[in-house]
């Protein structure tokens, strides 16, 4: 009889872990809170830095999960976990030989940065909204017209003590560059400004894309964080920032403000961790044993992590880590049960 | 006897127009010469220089010896056209004189002599003269054929690219191509109808007489002379405005140059002689690394001079030049290409306002005491190892040195000159001159060839000996003050443009290197050495292009199999080091490593 591993979360991390486990002859069970698989990548338009459609990654993954006949619970929320199984909100318990936490992250709620007027001004949107617009009917202002001037603000809900988000969300910088290029292609005559504190281009091809955005696509990069946004009488948005490179305040009126929202730890992590005796990092993500050989292991044997549940990660990193998780689970099962 | 026929009118009009235009041009340029230049002419007129100039005119304007040196076939083409035509005129004149005695006849009488012998029934059947004239015609025709060939396949002529021409030139060029074939046809037809002619026109004539009906020959006889006269006239009218003006410009240029006139950083009338003396032979295109390495085809000296001459010089063309001097080194006319280019940049300079560089007053960042001054240069401050090596050398020989810019100094001004901001550069020149004078140094050593060039060419430092550090080190070694240990190390040396072609310093660095190791020459060296691409003179090409130029140059140095690449310019060293796979050192570093105490 095959060992059974419950994977909490059916996003990219969960699916990839399931497939890897299956190929190792272990029976994965995915518990997904939503009504379908895919997680945060669902609804995303294109992936950085190569502009590959997100569906080109997500669909094959979901297809393979389906083809592998992985058992999935949909619309079920896990409230408690232990190394021998998980408990659903309904009270039902799914026993297992090991558990993988792949619940990912929560998007930072841009409402919390009140000064940017998200939810208050029509043309303040988040990077996620922009992806949805690109994936759907296209990008326009609320009144259906084309934006002439667009600002993209980096680090909304990242590296911000004021909202308790000390960490860098890692993927927003490159997303901002990617979206700036996409906007430039949609609106060749628009002025596009990226407001940033630091530009962190850590991945392969990222720096090259950044430079292309600057030189080829003529994106203006302003080193300074927008301090506040206000609506003008004609429904445009007046923003204020410091252009730190000239050491002077800067103000301008734009048609659209895109907030690059960061990744937050799930609110539920705290309760789950407390009850399961798991350690959390100060930023609310689950804490791994270490960053090296124990990068996917929790402090409780039999409970493993995959993907952004332990910190902000790109899709590429998440997929890679999921395979690692499966391998670690395999090793654990062999060690514990085959002795 | 009559020496007039209606068909000669185009020729006469063209010739009159041409000589008038040339005369006016010469006059205008000469009148506009600055006082200094006119004084130089007066001063040198009755000297041996004038005779030397005459000889040079023969060698260069007629025989084109220098082009022969670059490429014999190309040289032959130029020589056959220039010297052949010249002889045709001279021998033609002798021919008429032989038949008619020393009678003065109008110029068209000489040119269209074959026609007028028939009109005037002159008995002109000297086989020697006819064959000689046909031989000369054949010589010129061979030149024309080569010119055609060069258009079609310039590579065969030893050139990768042929010159692209302006409209004026196309007219003159097309006319010129037809001049001699037209003459051949006209003279052959004459021979066909009336007999006579040498081995070329005579044979062609008798063949034509055999195959073409007589009525037909009679019908095209007159038009053939009309055609010949017309293309000649057209060529003459176009000549003063086309590149063929070089024929008549090179002659005065040779004299002026022998009389010591030179172009300067500011434009002046003398420049016209240099600019219009360009025959657009295109020899300057091939050595240009912008062309060879980057495929840039619009900025080489030939195009630059063309654009400047026709007042269509764009700033980009003026600025897109490394000023490496490789073109200047091969220019058969000896035009001062880099100086001209600088002064056309200067024309579009900014007008500096009074307060500009006001911050230079009361600044002194020098240190140390000594009669020998060391000026590292701005770039050298990015290469601390060079400075440290120089200090080691100074210490080893116990030299007391005054350091002009150990803590960062004021630029020598040459970068500004290269960008055409000559007047701004003068402020740096004044500042640095004053600094050197104030510390009463007697020797000034610099490790930057750019600074060295400005110190020698643009500063007035009488009483101060200005040396490149390679010259200084060479002297220390020769005088026995500095003892160095020779080793087994194999070096290859890169000649910096400013040092080599700019200041003709090729041997000092080589002797210094040979004192400590083996030197292997790269494929292009000394006068032919490649530029590193980092040149300050070019503000158009981007970083990637600079690197491509450097990479090819570095590859040549590495192909020598050397252990270490040596150069003696901080800018070159930076360019080489980023593209080389083996250590790149300044000459001072090489020596400092080998000092025997």
């Amino acid at each position, binding site marked *: 009889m095959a060992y059974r591993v419950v994977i909490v979360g059916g996003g990219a991390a969960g699916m990839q872990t399931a497939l890897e486990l299956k190929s190792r002859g272990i029976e994965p069970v995915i518990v997904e809170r939503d009504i379908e698989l895919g997680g945060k990548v669902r609804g995303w338009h294109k992936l950085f830095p190569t502009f590959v459609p997100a569906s080109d990654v997500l669909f094959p993954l979901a297809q393979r999960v389906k083809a592998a006949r992985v058992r999935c619970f949909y619309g079920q929320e896990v409230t408690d976990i232990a190394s021998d199984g998980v408990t659903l909100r309904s009270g039902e318990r799914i026993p297992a030989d090991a558990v993988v936490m792949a619940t990912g992250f929560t998007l930072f709620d841009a*409402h919390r940065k*009140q000064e940017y007027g998200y*939810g*208050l001004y029509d043309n303040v949107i988040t990077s996620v909204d922009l992806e949805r617009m690109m994936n759907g009917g296209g990008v326009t202002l609320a009144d259906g017209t084309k934006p002439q001037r667009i600002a993209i603000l980096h680090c909304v809900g990242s590296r911000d003590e004021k909202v308790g988000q000390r960490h860098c969300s890692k993927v927003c910088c490159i997303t901002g560059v990617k979206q700036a290029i996409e906007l430039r292609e949609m609106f060749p005559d628009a002025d596009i400004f990226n407001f940033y504190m630091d530009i962190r281009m850590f991945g392969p091809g990222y720096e090259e894309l950044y430079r292309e955005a600057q030189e080829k696509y003529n994106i203006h990069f302003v080193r300074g964080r927008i301090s*506040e946004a*206000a609506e003008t*009488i004609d429904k445009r948005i*007046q923003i204020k920032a410091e252009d730190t490179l000239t050491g002077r305040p800067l103000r301008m009126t734009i048609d659209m403000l895109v907030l690059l929202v960061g990744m937050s730890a799930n609110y539920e992590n705290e309760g789950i961790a407390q009850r399961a005796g798991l350690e959390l990092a100060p930023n609310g993500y689950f804490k791994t044993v270490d960053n090296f050989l124990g990068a996917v292991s929790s402090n409780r044997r039999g409970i493993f992590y995959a993907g952004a549940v332990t910190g902000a990660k790109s899709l590429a990193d998440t997929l890679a880590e999921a395979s690692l998780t499966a391998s670690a689970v395999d090793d654990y099962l062999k060690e514990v049960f085959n002795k | 006897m009559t020496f007039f026929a209606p068909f000669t009118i185009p020729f006469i009009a063209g010739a009159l127009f041409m000589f008038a235009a040339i005369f006016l041009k010469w006059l205008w340029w000469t009148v506009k010469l600055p006082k200094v230049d006119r004084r130089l002419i007066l001063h040198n007129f009755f000297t041996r220089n004038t005779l030397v100039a005459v000889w040079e005119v023969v060698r260069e304007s007629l025989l084109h010896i220098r082009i022969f040196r670059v490429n014999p076939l190309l040289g032959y083409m130029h020589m056959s056209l220039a010297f052949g035509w010249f002889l045709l005129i001279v021998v033609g004149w002798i021919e008429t004189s032989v038949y008619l005695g020393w009678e003065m006849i109008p110029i068209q009488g000489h040119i269209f002599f074959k026609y007028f012998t028939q009109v005037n029934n002159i008995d002109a059947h000297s086989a020697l003269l006819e064959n000689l004239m046909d031989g000369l015609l054949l010589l010129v025709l061979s030149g024309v054929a080569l010119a055609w060939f060069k258009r079609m396949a310039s590579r065969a002529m030893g050139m990768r690219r042929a010159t692209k021409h302006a409209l004026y030139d196309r007219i003159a060029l097309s006319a010129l191509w037809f001049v001699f074939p037209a003459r051949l046809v006209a003279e052959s037809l004459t021979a066909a109808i009336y007999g006579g002619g040498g081995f070329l026109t005579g044979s062609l004539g008798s063949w034509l007489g055999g195959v073409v009906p007589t009525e037909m020959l009679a019908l095209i006889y007159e038009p053939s002379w009309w055609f010949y006269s017309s293309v000649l006239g057209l060529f003459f009218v176009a000549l003063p405005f086309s590149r063929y003006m070089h024929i008549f410009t090179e002659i005065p240029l040779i004299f002026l140059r022998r009389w010591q006139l030179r172009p300067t950083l500011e434009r002046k009338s003398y420049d016209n002689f240099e600019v219009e003396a360009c025959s657009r032979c295109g020899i300057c295109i091939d050595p240009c690394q912008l062309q060879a390495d980057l495929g840039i085809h619009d900025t080489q000296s030939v195009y630059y001079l063309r654009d400047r001459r026709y007042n269509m010089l764009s700033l980009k063309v003026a600025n897109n030049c490394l000023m490496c001097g490789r073109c200047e080194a091969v220019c058969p006319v000896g035009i001062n290409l880099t100086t001209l280019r600088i002064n056309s940049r200067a024309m579009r300079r900014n007008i500096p306002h009074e307060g500009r560089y006001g911050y230079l007053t009361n600044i002194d960042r020098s240190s140390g005491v000594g009669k020998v001054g060391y000026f590292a240069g701005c770039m050298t401050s990015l290469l601390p190892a060079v400075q440290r090596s120089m200090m080691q050398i100074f210490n080893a020989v116990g030299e007391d040195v005054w350091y002009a810019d150990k803590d960062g100094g004021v630029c020598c001004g040459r970068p500004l000159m290269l960008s055409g901001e000559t007047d701004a550069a003068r402020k740096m020149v004044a500042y640095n001159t004053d600094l050197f004078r104030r510390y009463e140094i007697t020797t000034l050593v610099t490790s930057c060839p750019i600074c060295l060039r400005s110190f020698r060419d643009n500063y007035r430092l009488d009483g101060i000996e200005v040396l490149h550090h390679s010259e200084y080190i060479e002297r220390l070694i020769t005088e026995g003050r500095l003892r160095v240990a020779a080793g087994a190390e194999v070096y290859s040396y890169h000649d910096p443009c400013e040092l080599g072609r700019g200041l003709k310093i090729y041997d000092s660095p080589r002797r210094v290197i040979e004192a400590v190791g083996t030197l292997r020459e790269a494929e292009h060296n000394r006068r032919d050495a490649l530029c590193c691409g980092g040149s300050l003179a070019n503000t158009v090409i981007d970083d990637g292009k600079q690197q491509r130029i450097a990479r090819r140059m570095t590859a040549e140095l590495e192909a020598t199999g050397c252990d270490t690449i040596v150069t003696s310019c901080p800018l070159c060293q930076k360019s080489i080091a980023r593209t080389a796979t083996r250590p790149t050192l300044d000459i001072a570093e090489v020596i400092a490593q080998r000092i025997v105490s």
Partner: protein
Amino acid sequence: MRRASWQEYQKEIADNKYYYARSCIRQNFFPGSERAFLDILTNDLGVDIFDDPLHTSCTGIGYHSDVVPLETIMTVVARQFSLMAEAGYENFISSCITSFGIYNEVLATWEEFPETEERTRRYLREATGRELVKPRSIAHTSDIMFHHRHSIARRAKRRLVNLYTGESLRVVEHIGCHYAKIFPKSGIGGSEFPYVLAGMIEAWGGDVVDYPERRHCCGFGFRNYLVQANRGSSIANSHKKLESMAPYKPDFIVANCPGCAMFLDKWQYAISEMDGTTYGANGRGIPVLTYEEMAGLVLGYDPWELGMQFHQVDVEPLLDKLGVEYNPDAKYLGRDGKLIGRPRAVAVNGCGVELGLRR
């Protein structure tokens, strides 16, 4: 306000029994407003409020201008609190935004650095023989007015509606910086979208204008105004706000800070004199009201009783829109019925004088 987030920033406000601390600027420039506050609370709402003649300036202006040291101001604040305790009250309300900021700052400092509180207790004891008793609650008087806004609405004689058009009046509200920018939690609605004045305006029938520079400072800034060399910077801030709000054609401005009300009003005069720009209708200024004046007009008080003749910018056009009956001839009459003097007629001030003569 379109934004409901103000509800995230709430604070406890006592319903009754207030100890009233006055404002230096308002006593001098808007004496009618403080009077009106006491009248409205006592007479209209029947609330117990104690106006203590013993309390002093909080010395905040001196503190922010670097002439009063921290220890001194803490001791002064401690004295006000102990006076309140002696009078038998525990809900401290301040008429001044600067003072409100000071009280909050001092209390927070005592909280964070208990040794400063100990020291202050000692100083207070040594200097006055009093014991420090900390208040149960601290509020600004606009908080109190906000707290009772619905009671006032029920008693209202008129609403903030333009009599001629039937439309709600467009009101620019301006919140003093020290109300919530120092401690966002200390203000109703926080620092980004404070609701304290907006709540009153909405409760009384007006429309709140949300304009780009709404959050910007009026420019008073203590040293910015107090030092003449810096005054250009002070006026530039009001100028920026006025430029930003002008396209919305506000009917009046209401402020909850003594300095703001004063500067938004008086700088309009200075700007019109300096570069000829006025921001209200018909080449006049935009009237600037205190929230007590606004409340007073809603409750049917006489504008001259409210002290509105003290304004730089004429309020008559606003009174006309609201349908307030007033006696133009009584505007500059003192309590004894004699003329107290009339200001020179200028663009923003001088109703009843031919406009043509001035331009």
